[in-house]
């Protein structure tokens, strides 16, 4: 049952702790500093954008925990048809 403060939309500290730990552990396990994710995201966009028109603002790059290991997941929405129709 949700508590009164949850109903009022206030987040409890345990839930904040869990969210923070989730991120911290993924980075600890991969020995990847959180700041590197931004650079990685930028570079991924550049590489892919050389071939396909991507929606730069909708790109999501994140580490996802699966058991005790992590997967790097990138979601890169494509805007329009390929730049080079000849490559079909």
């Amino acid at each position, binding site marked *: 049952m949700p508590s009164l*403060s949850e109903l009022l939309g206030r987040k409890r500290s345990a839930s904040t702790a869990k969210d923070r730990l989730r991120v911290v552990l993924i980075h600890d396990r991969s020995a990847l500093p959180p700041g590197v994710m931004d650079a990685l995201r930028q570079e991924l966009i550049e590489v892919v954008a050389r071939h396909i028109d991507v929606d730069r603002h909708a790109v999501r790059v994140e580490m996802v925990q699966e*058991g*005790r290991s992590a997967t790097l997941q990138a979601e890169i929405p494509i805007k329009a048809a390929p730049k080079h129709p000849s490559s079909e």
Partner: protein
Amino acid sequence: MTGRVITITSGKGGVGKTTATANISAALAAMGHKVVCMDADIGLRNLDVVLGLENRIVYDLVDVVEGRCKVRQAMIRDKRLEELYLIPAAQTRDKNAVAPKDMVRICDELRQDFDYIVIDSPAGIERGFKNAIAPADEVVIITNPEVSAVRDADRIIGLVEAEQKGPAKLVVNRINTDMVERGDMLAVADVLELLAVELIGIVPDDTAVLVSTNKGAPIALEPKSKTGQAFRDIARRLTGEEVPFSTSNGNNGFLGRISKLMKSKEGRNA
């Protein structure tokens, strides 16, 4: 007889390793097993006082390693339990006085006479930790429901795996049911989800632990204590018994999630 070596460790200090070692060892001995517990925290000897055996020490682990006495001579028999022994740490030396191969050799000798050898590890990730896990058949990680303890536990779980001593089993110590219910303490299910390891015990936060430590009498030997029961349950699980996690252990409402995480299908009423 080939005894099992169980190492109790953690990343962060002060989470309850020594308390757990004393109580799990006492509970195993009270079940009728032959048990020796060993304090591997060289330089910070503590297991002796928690068990109330500090006045009987003549030799210690470093004396055994350096050949000044036989393993037998360094073993102190418990006052209450016939089948419980302690090998104390040296107080005036540091962890480099012992090497992992010494621990393996001593434990191999002890395996012949005991059912369980329970090792109290120092905190951290250095030599003392390596000494403590070198002879282990099984590693138990103690943590508290608190961000830094969980983070450090994760690191240790990874190191245990890297040393081919995994998968480690987890004890969540010092759960405060009221705080969990208020949403101000990580629930056991949250900790398990984050660490993705097998749970082997939930111990409540209980002021009676301090009282029993003051007296040098393990709470696991108090039949009516819920905290004592929590340690007895861990001991039984370590022997391979299936012991359900009871609702009185600070998990009301979270039991369904725990059961799911443990992939257990037994009927447990939350």
